[in-house]
């Protein structure tokens, strides 16, 4: 039996397992990225426009999360909280960990994007009588969101791949399924190769989606910015 046949057999025999794992991976990624996005928007606005207190708190959260390994954060959530009376399922612990972690990175991308928007936009908005919040929501953020899409795509891809860490705390995602399959048939190379291809295909799919989105919301006349 040659290599291709072996890989094919694994796909045929275990596709429901791979699919199940992929489902969990996608579910974790999408939930975490959405919650992370909300966290990111709040932290970015607090950092750029907040008073000393909000700026300080947001900065501290971001520095702590960025300065510590994601795996350590997951361990704290999963193994560290139960003694304090908080029992999280592996799935919940992973999502919370990923959402907070991704939120901090998204906040930094968004902050850069907000700060790249010329000060004259805020000034012009205020000169019309807009409040600071109206100016942020109506004028600054719609432009910042457009500019952040390329960086944000990157963050999404990272997150999708980093969800593989969740197997360590026992969430039944793609990597966990792969480990399970490989431990049965000992065909490590073949199994992980299949997993790698699955990740790659999914990443390429989302990259395409976001690049379509980027084009769709592009501001006419500013195409060169891309």
């Amino acid at each position: 039996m040659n290599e291709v046949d072996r890989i094919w057999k694994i796909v045929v025999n275990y596709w429901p397992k791979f699919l199940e794992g992929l489902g969990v991976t996608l579910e974790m990624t999408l939930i975490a990225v959405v919650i992370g996005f909300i966290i990111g928007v709040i932290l970015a606005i607090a950092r750029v426009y907040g008073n000393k207190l909000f700026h300080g708190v947001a900065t501290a959260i971001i520095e702590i999360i960025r300065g510590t390994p994601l795996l350590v954060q997951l361990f704290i959530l999963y193994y560290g909280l139960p003694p304090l009376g908080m029992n999280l399922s592996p799935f919940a612990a992973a999502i919370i960990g990923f959402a907070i972690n991704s939120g901090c990175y998204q906040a930094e991308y968004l902050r850069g994007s907000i700060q790249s928007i010329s000060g004259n936009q805020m000034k012009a908005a205020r000169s019309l009588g807009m409040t600071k919040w109206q100016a942020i929501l109506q004028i600054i953020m719609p432009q910042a969101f457009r500019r952040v899409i390329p960086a944000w795509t990157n963050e999404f891809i990272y997150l999708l791949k980093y969800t593989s860490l969740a197997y360590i705390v026992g969430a039944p995602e793609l990597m966990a399924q792969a480990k399970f399959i490989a431990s049965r048939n000992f065909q490590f190379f073949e199994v992980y190769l299949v997993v790698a291809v699955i990740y790659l295909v999914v990443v390429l799919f989302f990259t395409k989606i976001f690049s379509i989105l980027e084009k769709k919301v592009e501001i006419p006349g500013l195409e060169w910015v891309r």
Partner: protein
Amino acid sequence: MSKERVVLRVENLKKAFGDKEVLKGVSFDMKEGETKVIIGPSGTGKSTLLSCINMLVTPDSGQIWLEEEEVTSAKNINKIRQEIGFVFQDFGLFNHLTALKNVMVGLTKVKKIEKDFAKEIAMKELTRVGLEREANMYPAQLSGGQKQRVGIARALAMSPKIILFDEPTSALDPELIGEVLSVMKNLAESGMTMLVVTHEMGFARTVSDEIIFMEHGHIVEQSSPEEMFKNPKNPRTKEFLFKLSELYGSE
């Protein structure tokens, strides 16, 4: 139109950035329908003065009155800013909105005017500046002169009591300056109260009711254009105007 009612009064306005005193006690007033032009060398506080009037920059001391309301102690500055139009040197158009939406956004979001009516007003103002056909274009698709005309339409749509122009043609190519100046000229003739910081001496001479010459944070001289150009009192004014006429030729 009554030329007596005072729309804007500025009294002893002072502003410093760190150690640098930019405005050292500036006072003047504007009557309804008047057009005044502020001239003077760069870095003498002309733009800062304009930004102080609608409190985009907070003055250190002095008072500003818009009709009966004191701007400098206003509780709701956003309300007052609706009544003071501002036209920026770099246009300040919202890049993600079409020309039409740029003009509408203040009406719908700030004045809470219903969308169809806001659109009607916006189209009227765009037509007034000759841009009805460009209504659905984005700022990046417009020429500099067109952008600035959208900026003027946006200010006009709010039906302000006064419009402040901060070097409205300084960022434009020479061949585009004319279209903006002619819109401003029509505006002045229609009775809009306008305070204009500019280096366009032709505009100052032919359109303004009064020219204010500023230097080093002071008003050095203010008088009618005829007086200012023919018979400047202050030697600094003379020198400045002479330099300009050397540069651009005097006609």
